[in-house]
């Protein structure tokens, strides 16, 4: 399963757009890219999933370049409630469930 690398932490002011990039150089053809959000003392919560190009939902956008060796999670106009840890996962449609999460990116939103 492809290993991922993402920044350990990021700070942002309220109202700004935040982009978190994840590197996954060994991504396989069948692999999807999935992002989760986790608040303290809670389980991770699915944010967005994609395979290529751009995916957008009500909370975020996911940009995936043609080579798929990286991906960028974009959070528009963050608020204090977006302070959380964000995890990037890469894996097959069902097989990714056994992937061990990395440390993730701790996003701190500043008033």
């Amino acid at each position: 399963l492809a290993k991922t690398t993402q920044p350990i932490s990021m700070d942002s002011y309220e109202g700004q757009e935040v982009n978190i990039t994840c590197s996954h150089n060994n991504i396989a053809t069948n692999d999807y890219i999935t992002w989760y959000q986790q608040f303290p003392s809670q389980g991770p919560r699915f944010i967005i999933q994609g395979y290529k190009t751009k995916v957008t939902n009500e909370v975020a956008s996911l940009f995936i370049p043609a080579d798929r060796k990286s991906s960028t999670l974009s959070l528009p106009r963050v608020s204090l409630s977006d302070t959380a840890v964000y995890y990037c996962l890469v894996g097959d449609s069902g097989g990714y469930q056994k992937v061990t999460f990395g440390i993730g990116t701790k996003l701190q939103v500043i008033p």
Partner: protein
Amino acid sequence: DAGVTQSPTHLIKTRGQQVTLRCSPKSGHDTVSWYQQALGQGPQFIFQYYEEEERQRGNFPDRFSGHQFPNYSSELNVNALLLGDSALYLCASSLTATNEKLFFGSGTQLSVL
């Protein structure tokens, strides 16, 4: 529609004891995975149950065992508790037949003294 529910929410045990944690998956889901999350770390995969059998396992000793019942609920058992077993234990459910995301419960916070 209830999501993934876990019980208990908190638990305190002493070294050498045994513990059982419980998980009810989201309605319609047939697969349950268990994760251990130490403070400041990401969730670590323990094992996954589907059709009442352990299908995949992470790098955890045999002290960690589980069970899945016909109604898809699951238990995680840990024997001979060590101080290092103190962690948040998360249960996640999914539907194996589809490319569906994992739904996590809020976890059980286990403290081993």
